[in-house]
């Protein structure tokens, strides 16, 4: 059990959560909560792997995954934005739908042999930095590096650009945004699509890079839901989302590794001698998600932060209210 390896692998597996969480941040910043992340991720993972198997090209798989999940997200967009249905139920339905379609179309895919994956590489010079180098810049997947760039870019986009300001306006006060000539419906459709594309990217990151293959529902194993929880912990901020994602990634890896060694800190390792205690370790990411939600909501009260004001509410032009 090597701490560097755990953190290195944690950053890699946290990248999956990172894409999904930031995608959901975009959607929720526009006022639409999409609980379908898990379904969109599964569809992304399945279609990425499937296309990579049949064409031999993982990049094509990545592209198809993003498009497929983006298209799926538009069902949610149509139901909640145009038909003004409840976002919670529609998001759940989207998860069922995405899971079901992925299981049907992914039938037999788990038996597919080795395929060419997205490349891993080290960044010269940066690997030499003590501690940081081995964790962040050595033998990581290209998706991990894309993740590094993605966080500051999305923070800058949301907080410092004109379209980012429109995005926040639509999520905070759609009626005011509408009077300023911002297309509320179009903006929401677009960012739900962005959220879907990023969830698809997250799914493809699993099946083509981090833990390659298709293992039906176990491919994501609830990470889409953890991402939805992380959005609240992150207070809708991509930078905080990054810390949360990497921490959860490291936790996942720690759970795997802690059962290996004979001794832990000089004591005999209880998880080695009682392998069934591993079931309690398996609970940890889910239990931590709940704890993180408690922390997030307490902090929101204390610092008067909080969700975008119009989150979850349909916008009906000409009606009173937000």
């Amino acid at each position, binding site marked *: 059990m090597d701490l560097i390896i755990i953190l290195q692998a944690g950053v890699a597996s946290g990248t999956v959560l990172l894409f999904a969480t930031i995608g959901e941040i975009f959607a929720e910043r526009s006022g639409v909560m999409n*609980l379908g992340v898990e*379904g969109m991720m599964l569809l992304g993972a399945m279609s990425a792997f499937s296309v990579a198997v049949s064409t031999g090209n993982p990049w094509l798989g990545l592209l198809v995954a993003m498009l497929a999940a983006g298209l799926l997200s538009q*069902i949610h967009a*149509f*139901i909640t934005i145009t*038909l*003004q*249905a*409840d976002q*919670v*139920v*529609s998001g*759940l*339905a*989207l*998860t*069922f*739908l*995405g*899971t*079901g*379609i*992925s*299981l*049907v*179309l*992914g*039938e*037999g895919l788990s038996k597919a042999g080795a395929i060419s994956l997205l490349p891993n590489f080290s960044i010269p010079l940066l690997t030499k930095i003590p501690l940081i180098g081995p964790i962040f810049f050595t033998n990581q997947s290209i998706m991990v590096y894309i993740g590094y760039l993605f966080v500051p870019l999305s923070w800058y986009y949301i907080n410092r650009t004109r379209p980012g300001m429109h995005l926040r306006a639509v999520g905070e006060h759609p009626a005011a945004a509408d009077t300023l000539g911002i297309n509320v419906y179009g903006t929401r459709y677009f960012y739900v699509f962005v959220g879907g594309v990023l969830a698809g990217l997250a799914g493809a990151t699993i099946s083509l890079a981090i833990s390659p293959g298709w293992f*039906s529902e176990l491919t994501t*194993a*609830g990470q889409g*839901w*953890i991402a*939805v*929880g992380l959005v*609240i912990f992150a207070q809708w901020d991509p930078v905080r989302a990054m810390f949360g994602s990497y921490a959860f990634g490291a936790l996942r890896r720690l759970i795997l590794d802690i059962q290996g060694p004979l001794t832990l800190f000089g004591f005999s390792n209880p998880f080695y001698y*009682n392998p*069934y*205690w591993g*079931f*309690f370790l*398996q*609970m940890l990411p*889910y*239990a931590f*998600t*709940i704890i993180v*939600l*408690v922390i997030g*909501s*307490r902090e929101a*009260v204390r610092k008067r932060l909080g969700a975008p004001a119009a989150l979850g509410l349909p916008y009906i032009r000409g009606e009173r209210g937000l």
Partner: protein
Amino acid sequence: MTDAITPHTARRGFPYRIRFEKRLKEPPRWYPVLVSLGAVLVALLFGGILIAWAGGDPIASYKHIGRASFGNLGVFSDTIVKATPLIFVGLACSVAFRMRLWNIGAEGQFFLGAFGASAVVLIPLLPPETSPWIFIPTMMLAGIAAGALWGFIPGFLKARYNVNEVISTLMLNYIAVAWNNFFIFAVWSEGGFQMSPMFPKTAWLPRLADYAKQYPIFRGLTSHLGFIIAIITAVIVWFVLYRSRWGYEIRLIGDNPEAARYAGINIARNTILVMMFSGGLAGLAGMSEITGVVHRLQGAISPGYGFTGIIIAWLAKLNPFAVIPVSILFGALILAGREIQPSGIPKMIQGIILVCLIASDFLIRYRIRIDRQVEEA
């Protein structure tokens, strides 16, 4: 001349104008039923297209579902067996959803209910020779208590810390599965197998087949007492929701939380109680499945019953009596779906049905008016 500024020219070539109008009065009672049926038919159509795309034969699949679940008394009895847990979880979701509490954790509460009922036999709290008249009620109470505890956690977190119950209940599902697995693998494992020892016969819910001696027609029928308990539970839930003071509070909070607060209703307390009520109902589903079907604690006791319960509640429009027939239909889908290839089809069809149902709600809230544009001379 004036033609250029009339709004009609904007849509030249399309002689109709489609408008959505909010319904001002409630539509007739049959209308929502018709819309839901229509939504299910549309869903089956979409499902068929997807099945064909995945390389299956949609018509053969649907025919198979019908035959393998309603074809004769034997398979119909199996359908009822599958419908029994679905009624409980459908009721569980209906109760919570009525207060607009999104309990997505029926699956985990189901597992905990199975665990609680098993604990009575396996700890053991009662010796195996106990009379069924004591055994079965004790197991029911244990199942309800364990499920209610699993509902209490998200209810408390929601009431106290405003934690989103969708995510907390979902996370508790995963925890419940791992919790049960620990006991199946480590504590109650029988000879290293991933299952507990068989329960004593006194802890089995009676089946129709048990009475085959008196009534030969019951030979081989696996429907068990759980179905009767489920129907009685549906009546109780209806009574609580629509004929009791508490039910009135639940419905008022669901319809208008602001008004409920002004009326002095304690929303935090009701959040916890309703989650426990809902969790207890789902726990009863786990108990019924364990004591009526598998007779031991093991993994894979649920093909996602808890999630199907969400769809059932929605299709039944949260009406406890409507939950029963809807559960039978979904029981058929799950029963027959086990043999259909590809194996994900029942899940996919359930997903499509829910999507279509939610979309169809629009037709209940709005009217579509299509006016013919009058060309101006």
